[in-house]
């Protein structure tokens, strides 16, 4: 709970920085699924050309979805293609993403407690997951008066280190589809 408060304070203080400041995040993301929360919200930055972006997200998994879980995710994306499909509408068909998620809850460990386990008893960390995926998004320009420059919608397919490890030793039973996870989200490109 403390950790969540700290991050909320950081986010709020981010907003309170003056509008001229380059520190102000210019990306607001709301995502459904994708292995980082039932719903997650985050703030981030993208560069001028809109090719690179990085965000910090907070994800929540409610008890009725096998939670409660509170997950923080650092996510980076790259948009190599930017196709003008219509006036003010752009399609970014294939955008690689990488992200690291951190599950903060009890029973999830960054490093296994030495008081309980000998060294290397388990080889992975249960709190940290690294993920890799690909997004496809459509961005719509917004009118001058709007608080955001554009809004984009995306779908994403990703997987994580432990699923890849499961797949690699079981290529007969598991397919790449089996280890894939979907998400859908909306991004606001803030002014």
């Amino acid at each position: 709970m403390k950790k969540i408060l700290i991050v909320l304070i950081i986010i709020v203080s981010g907003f309170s920085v003056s509008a001229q400041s380059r520190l102000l995040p210019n990306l607001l993301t709301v995502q459904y699924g994708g292995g980082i929360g039932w719903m997650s919200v985050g703030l981030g930055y993208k560069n001028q050309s809109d090719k690179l972006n990085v965000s910090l997200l907070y994800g929540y998994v409610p008890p009725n979805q096998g939670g409660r879980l509170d997950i923080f995710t650092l996510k980076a994306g790259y948009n190599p293609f930017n196709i003008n499909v219509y006036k003010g509408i752009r399609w970014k068909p294939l955008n690689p993403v990488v992200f690291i998620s951190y599950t903060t809850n009890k029973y999830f460990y960054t490093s296994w407690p030495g008081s309980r386990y000998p060294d290397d008893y388990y080889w992975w960390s249960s709190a940290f997951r690294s993920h890799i995926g690909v997004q496809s998004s459509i961005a719509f320009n917004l009118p001058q008066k709007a608080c955001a420059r554009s809004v984009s919608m995306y779908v994403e397919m990703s997987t994580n280190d432990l699923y890849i490890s499961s797949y690699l030793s079981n290529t007969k039973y598991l397919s790449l589809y089996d280890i894939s996870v979907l998400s859908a989200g909306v991004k606001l490109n803030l002014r």
Partner: protein
Amino acid sequence: MKNIYYIIAFTLFISLLAGCEKFESSPNQAHDNNTPRHINQRNIDKLLARADQDDTIRIVFTGDSQRYYDEAELLVKKVNSMEDVDFLIVAGDLTDFGLRQEFEWINDIFSGLTVPYISAIGNHDVIGNGKKTFEYMFGVDNFSFVYKRTKFIFHNTNSREYHFKGNIPDMNWLAQECQPQPGVEYIVPVSHVPPYDGDFDKNLEQSYAQTLRNTKGLLISLHGHHHHTNDQYPYEDGVRYLNSNAVDKRVFMLLEIYNGKVHKTPVSY
């Protein structure tokens, strides 16, 4: 403009086609809306409903299926080709990382068995939200049932995961379960970590061994965790302890219980 709608419609369609369960909240979520439930109890019910007049119990004994899906499929195929098997026992460690997805994958494979399968909880199944998932999908970690006058006592012996606090295994519960009762002639305890292992609570080892020693009709104590078959009398007190092979070893033990004797045959797959 029309093109856009096509693209949106197409993406949405693909997402819907993939089904909601692909929108995973977290690999660490204990369950989702489609996670199966009460697997152990449903399989026990199926076993007890078997109209089998013969008094031999034939058990396929395996364990540690953790991340051995390809081999587990071969095991299922082999078991399904055999006759007169009553049920299959997994001596814990269904999963490697304690993840919901792993529990669902292995259940998907073992659900293909023509006989019921019943599983103990292993130390890997406890990790993270694993204990919650095991309880949600399989049921409680300490349970028992009586089949052909033999009582099978499945219980949690993963002491290390509980800081060796003296509560795992639950000795009071176990002692209660080992009491003589009408209709029960023999007793077979099943758990993951054997008492002679470093992951078992040292303070409970002697009382555990003693409880089994003093149990009337105790046939054999079944365990996993070591990944290879180990059939021994470690306390030289007449109590036989048997460790299962892990699923990747591609050999399981067929246990035939008849007239107070346990006969063991390795079967490769």
